């Protein structure tokens, strides 16, 4: 029996990257979000590329990082477009960047292309932490394994299981990746982690970081965002 992770609700923010990424999120929404997140000691906040500067500025005097995204959330962009976005994120002070992988290459079984893209992404990111999104919800176990192999060969050691949009990550996915690649890969989970118990279960399964848009609920923090999703 492995040691169970014990995280008190008050400590949970250190394990959580909370995000506000939607089409109609305005600068005013982001300002409100950052102000509400700032006092609670979250690991990081994820915002879209145009809001990088604002997030870096608002959070400059606390330990909370700024995360951004590339080819997000659907992952259909070309490698060159991803590199362009990554360069922007790097220049604008991102601590880490979550990048969707090339799902068409994965589904084509072209793992050489997957590995090649990972290598180019790592070069472009330089000192910025890269977290790649294999979107486990659309992959077979064989594809998950081959994708993780390609990712490691390409020089990346961080994965985020899903984009958090539309596909959920199952506990079994985390256990599978942990068992196969746990010695080399740092696992971040996104997609379907809604409660404190969900988060604890994922941490126990081997995840190190939880992504959630309901971080306040998970941590029992009484804050309500100005932004309300329109369906």
């Amino acid at each position, binding site marked *: 029996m492995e040691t169970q992770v014990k995280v008190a609700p008050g400590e949970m923010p250190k394990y959580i990257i909370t995000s506000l990424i*939607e*089409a109609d999120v305005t600068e005013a929404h982001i300002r409100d979000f950052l102000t509400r997140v700032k006092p609670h000691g979250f690991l990081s906040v994820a915002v879209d590329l145009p809001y990088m500067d604002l997030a870096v500025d608002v959070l400059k005097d606390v330990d909370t990082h700024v995360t951004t995204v590339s080819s997000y959330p659907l992952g259909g*962009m070309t490698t060159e477009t991803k590199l362009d976005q990554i360069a922007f994120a790097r220049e604008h002070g991102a601590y880490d960047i979550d990048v969707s992988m090339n799902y068409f290459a994965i589904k084509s079984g072209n793992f050489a292309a997957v590995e090649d893209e990972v290598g180019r992404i790592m070069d472009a990111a330089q000192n910025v932490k890269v977290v790649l999104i294999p979107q486990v919800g659309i992959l077979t176990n064989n594809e998950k394994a081959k994708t993780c192999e390609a990712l490691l060969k390409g020089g990346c050691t961080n994965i985020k299981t899903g984009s958090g949009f539309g596909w959920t990550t199952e506990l079994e996915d985390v256990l599978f990746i942990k068992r196969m690649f746990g010695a080399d890969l740092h696992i971040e989970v996104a997609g379907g982690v809604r409660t404190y118990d969900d988060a604890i279960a994922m941490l126990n399964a081997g995840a190190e970081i939880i992504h959630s848009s309901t971080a306040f609920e998970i941590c029992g923090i009484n804050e309500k965002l100005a932004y309300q999703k*329109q369906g």
Partner: protein
Amino acid sequence: MTIDRKAFAGTIDHTYLKIEGGPGEIQRICLEAEKYGFASVAIYPSVVPFAAKLLNGTSVEICAALGFDLGTYTPDQKAFETKDIIEKGATEVDLVMNVAAAKSKEWGLLEEEFGKFREAAGQTTAKIILETYLLTDEEKVKACELAMAAKLDFVKTSTGFRKGTPDKPGGARVHDVKLMADTVLPNVRVKAAGGIRTLDDALALIDVGATRLGCSAGVQLMAAYDAKYS
């Protein structure tokens, strides 16, 4: 209203935007598009080189879905992506606009985005996606006016990815297409996309001014057309 079979097929952007699609799925939609005479295949940029090779020498356009599905990146990044994908074989580009800019009335930012999109697209057919369910009618009209000023080729209702709410559904609505058509025709054309599943849906949208339909149900629409008119 009647529309002949060839013209009807020619309104359809045969759309495949499931991220789990592999070569088999893309090959299927490319073959269907050629067989039925659809206007284009609408696909992700990462799939464009593969589809462009398959459809080389046919009249089917290669339509790249840019910025899916949130559209939340900068005008320069959008311009970069547009140029890049045209070099890789896209002959039409559908880009999600910065919805947040419209919501916060930063019309200058949208003007910049549309202008850079037009410039980057050059002669390539450029469609800007409004994601109408998130906008007020006033915001839709303003975005349409900016699209006209930027000389874009199409305004398009939706990405088709969003359900919306019961009173503001995420797909193409007759009300929106009519509003957009009344604003932009004939300088700019209107593409309706999202939730077009039946022949009645399609004909109602064409009736109020749509000349392109973005949908994944193209083959079923043709079968329904043939059943009704032949």
